[in-house]
C-alpha cells in the first residue's frame, strides 16, 4: 500500500510545479490582455486619480446601472475617451462633468447636485430617520405612561379585596 502511495504523491508533486507556472503565467497574460482593451497613459498620478474618479461617478446613459468605468457599451468608451482628452487638455473635473451634463442631462451623475428636483433624494433618508425616531420615542413614552398608571395607589376597598384574595389563596394552599 505504502509503496504504491509514495510514487503517486511524487508524481503529483512533479505535475504541480509546471501547473503552477502555467497558472501564474496565464494570470499575467490575462491581466495584460485586460489592460490592452483600454489604455490611457497619464503623465501624473493625479490625472490618473481624477480619471478614475470621473469614470466612477459618471453614469452610462445606455446601460443605466453601470458607471462608465464599468461599462463596455460604445457610448461609455466614447465618454472615457472624451474625459481622457479633456483631462490632458487641462480641464477641471467640474468642467468635464458640466460638459457631460449639458449633453446627457443630470442623469449621468451618480452623485446628483442638490436642486429642486433632487432635494427629496438627498434629505429623504434624514426625514425618514427623524420620523422613525419620533415614532419610536412616542411608543416608548406610551409604554412608560401606561406602566405608571398601573402602579397608581389602590383605594382602601381595593386593598382589602386584594388581601382577601391573597388570604384565600394561602388557605387553599395549606
Amino acid at each position, binding site marked *: 500500500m505504502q509503496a504504491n502511495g509514495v510514487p503517486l504523491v511524487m508524481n503529483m508533486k512533479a505535475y504541480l510545479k509546471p501547473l503552477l507556472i502555467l497558472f501564474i503565467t496565464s494570470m499575467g497574460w490575462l491581466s495584460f490582455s485586460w489592460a490592452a482593451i483600454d489604455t490611457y497613459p497619464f503623465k501624473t498620478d493625479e490625472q490618473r486619480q481624477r480619471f478614475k474618479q470621473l469614470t466612477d461617478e459618471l453614469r452610462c446613459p445606455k446601460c443605466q446601472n453601470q458607471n462608465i468605468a464599468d461599462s463596455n457599451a460604445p457610448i461609455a468608451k*466614447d465618454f472615457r475617451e472624451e474625459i481622457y482628452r479633456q483631462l490632458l487638455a487641462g480641464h477641471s473635473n467640474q468642467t468635464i462633468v458640466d460638459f457631460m451634463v449639458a*449633453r446627457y*442631462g443630470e442623469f449621468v451623475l451618480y452623485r446628483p447636485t442638490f436642486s429642486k428636483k433632487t432635494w427629496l433624494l438627498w434629505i429623504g433618508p434624514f426625514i425618514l430617520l427623524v420620523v422613525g425616531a419620533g415614532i419610536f420615542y412616542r411608543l416608548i413614552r406610551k409604554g412608560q405612561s401606561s406602566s405608571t398608571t398601573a402602579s397608581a395607589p389602590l383605594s382602601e376597598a381595593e386593598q382589602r379585596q386584594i388581601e382577601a384574595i391573597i388570604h384565600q389563596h394561602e388557605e387553599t394552599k395549606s
Partner: protein
Amino acid sequence: MARLKLFIPLLLFIALAGFLYQGIYDKDDSLTSALLNKPFPAFSLPTVQSVETNIGKQELLGEAALVNVWATWCPSCQVEHPYLLKLAQQGVKIIGVNYKDDRAAAQQWLIKLKNPYVFSIFDQKGRLGMDLGVYGAPETYLIDREGTIRYKHVGVVDEQVWLTKIKPKYDALNTKKAEPVQQNAG
C-alpha cells in the same frame, strides 16, 4: 380607531411594493434630452454622399425638420427605415446623421433601401452625436426652423410614435408659418 391604525404600516408596504413592482416592468428607459428647447449644436461635417461638401448648422434651418440618427450597424434603424421613406413622401423634411458608421456601407444602404433624407451628415467619430446627447441609434430629433430642438424620440419611429408623439408638435411648429402645413398634414 386604534385598531385601524395598526394597518398603516401594511398599507405603506403595499403602496411601496406596488410602486417598485411596476418599476420592474417599466421598459421605457429613454432619457429626455438635455438639449430640449436648446439650439442644435454647431458642427462642420461632410455628408455621406460626398467627402468634399462641408455641411454646417445653417443647412438645417428654414423649416421644421426631423433629424434622424442612423447607422448601418443598427438593426432598429432598418426597422424604421420604410416609415421614414413614407414620411419623406408626405413632405416631411428629414435630415440624417450617419452615426459612427462606414461611409461605403452607408452609401450602399441608401441605394439599396432608398433615401428618405434630404442629406445625411457623416458623423464618423460620433462627435456631433455626443454634442447632441446621442446614446444609441436610432434617435430622432424634431427641430424648428430656427434650429431649436423641440423633441427627442429614442428608438424606432413608427406610425404610432409619429401620430401620437411627434406629429402634433411638428404640426404646431408649422402652423406658425402657414403655407407648407396643409400639404404636409395629409
